[in-house]
């Protein structure tokens, strides 16, 4: 009887797996064909930039979602990836290393800085770690702004190299400002990243991260070196933002320090991860797309919509209030309200990981190893 039950369960799982495969296959085909449906390629361009945010969110998800380390300075690694590319592939010092070499190289550079930041700070727990990473996230863009000899200061570096491939189908192979190759490039990078991160999660390392997140003391007592394991989370998380940084800088043709501020990057990416569902890659992707859409589409269109709505209603005092103007001014307020609303409705995230779901209902242990050892 027992075996029968298991068999039917197995069948159910297989069926679920098959329909899921079809779903992903469908989404994949849609994504590949997407540029064909978009005649003026403006939406393709938007999608390509959204891809950068997805990549950032996936990287931060390793640190926050898997290893449970609250990192508020993720923008720093994004900035490091961007500037590494900008310095090594532009007229700034007349160094022109190929984009295709720098894409993995800047991931390594970002990972190195991940270790550099992680090493002194990983004894700290939750809130304290968050504060230190926040500081790091503020320092890095400031260094780039002030070290103007290397980085061009406030103006940043303009005229970065762009990738090239051998010409195909009558296309020159120059990426330039044509969004279609950029779109396919980021699509490829994301698919590879998904594959790599999925492997990580199901590996020995992923299991160690989860163990540390659940109970650091017990993890150490079972033989996990908590320091190196956390460092690896920082390094691997940072490396994906290195990819994103290189891509972003090259696509934009320039880097400037203010694109890496706390409110522009670190917080937004964290919101994507938390709101999408920490520790769940699908959730994080959905979160990234949603937040990006709200920021670049909804918030910008909203004043216009309000204006046309009040005009249509044609009520004198309502038109005089000029609500559209206020909506434009209180952009961030509206953004905040939307976030609060979503978090109230779905505190576990849009697509939570199975573990997070139960955790949120029942709480988790909060002792840290350093705290225990710090007792004199």
């Amino acid at each position, binding site marked *: 009887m027992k075996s029968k039950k298991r068999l039917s369960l197995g069948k159910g799982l297989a069926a679920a797996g098959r329909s899921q495969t079809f779903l992903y296959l469908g989404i994949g085909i849609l994504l590949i064909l997407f540029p064909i449906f978009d005649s003026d390629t403006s939406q393709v361009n938007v999608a390509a930039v959204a891809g950068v945010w997805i990549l950032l969110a996936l990287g931060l998800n390793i640190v926050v979602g898997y290893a449970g380390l609250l990192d508020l300075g993720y923008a720093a690694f994004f900035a490091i990836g961007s500037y590494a590319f900008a310095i090594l592939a532009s007229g700034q010092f007349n160094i022109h290393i190929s984009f295709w070499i720098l894409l993995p190289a800047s991931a390594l550079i970002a990972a190195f800085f991940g270790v550099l930041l992680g090493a002194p700070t990983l004894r700290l727990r939750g809130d304290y770690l968050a504060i230190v990473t926040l500081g790091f996230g503020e320092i890095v863009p400031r260094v780039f702004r002030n070290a103007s000899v290397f980085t061009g200061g406030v103006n940043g570096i303009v005229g970065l190299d762009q990738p090239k491939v051998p010409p195909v189908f009558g296309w020159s192979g120059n990426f330039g400002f044509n969004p279609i190759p950029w779109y396919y490039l980021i699509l490829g990078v994301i698919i590879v990243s998904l594959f790599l991160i999925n492997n990580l999660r199901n590996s020995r390392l992923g*299991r160690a991260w989860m163990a540390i997140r659940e109970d650091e003391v017990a993890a150490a007592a079972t033989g996990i070196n908590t*320091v190196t394991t956390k460092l690896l989370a920082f390094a691997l998380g940072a490396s994906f933002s290195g990819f994103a940084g290189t891509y972003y800088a090259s696509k934009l043709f320039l880097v400037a320090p203010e694109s890496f501020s706390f409110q522009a990057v670190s917080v937004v990416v964290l919101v994507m991860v938390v709101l999408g569902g920490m520790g769940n890659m699908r959730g994080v992707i959905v979160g990234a797309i949603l937040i990006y859409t709200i920021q670049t589409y909804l918030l910008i269109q909203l004043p216009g919509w309000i204006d046309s709505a009040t005009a249509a209603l044609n009520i004198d005092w309502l038109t005089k209030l000029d609500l559209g103007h206020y909506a434009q001014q209180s952009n961030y307020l509206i953004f905040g309200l939307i976030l609060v609303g979503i978090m109230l409705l779905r505190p576990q995230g849009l697509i939570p990981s199975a573990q997070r779901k*139960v955790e949120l209902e029942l709480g988790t242990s909060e002792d840290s190893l350093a705290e*225990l050892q710090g007792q004199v």
Partner: protein
Amino acid sequence: MPILEVKGLTKRFGGLLAVNNVDLSVEAGEIFAMIGPNGAGKTTLFNLVAGLYKPTSGQIFFNGRSVYPVREFWRTYSPPIAAYYTVADAVRRGVGLGPLPLGLKPHAVTTLGVARTFQNIRLFSYMTAVENVMVGEHPRMHAQVWDALLNTPFARNEERRVRDRAMELMRFVGLERYADQYARNLAYGFQRRLEIARALATEPKLLMLDEPAAGFNPQEKAELMQLIQAIRSRGITVFLIEHDMKVVMEVSERIVVLDYGEKIAEGPPQKVRTNPRVIEAYLGKSA
């Protein structure tokens, strides 16, 4: 040779002397119990051995090798590093600090062959039971970061092997039916067993159990005693803290008694049971 030897071990928490100048040695292959009233310093001693706390003074040897202080270790193996410690200690003393608090990290103690369970069960609640045990195998796995990233055949094989071994341990503690349940959903007694399985997964030579029978009914206690015997017959030395006298007297070969952080008695169960100081510690002075 004793598998674990503790010499003059002292631990102070501010004004509280939790463990005071304790000497004890656990022989390889025995079942050794530590008893004592609440607050006697038993768990503190466990934490000291496991590397969670650093001793105020004293030495800990595992298989004749120093776990703490590390200075002794380096003095034999690397004079330059030992010299660094000497200088650093001198500087710290000069500015009014104590010597560098250096000992092996908890994970290093575990890889030396000391595994433990916790008094208040500490499982990875939101991982499945078998995953909990697999975490215990972590230090003996060899897949590197790139193996993990690319899911190489090596990593896949190792994962399969480790899962099989974990399942074997689950069978050993009698939990194979619950392998895919979240640890936190297991019944209390099963959680204790799962913690033991996780500790065994690290392939310890010495297993330290902190009150394994707490909250058990007589039936569960009998099963636990069987399990402890079975663990010992695998060649693992068992060092346990226990309050339940019946379990202690029946299962252990030697007992040490702690009171107010001091060792007040040591010996076989029959002898310890009749020791007047032990009776006094447990029942109070007779009027």
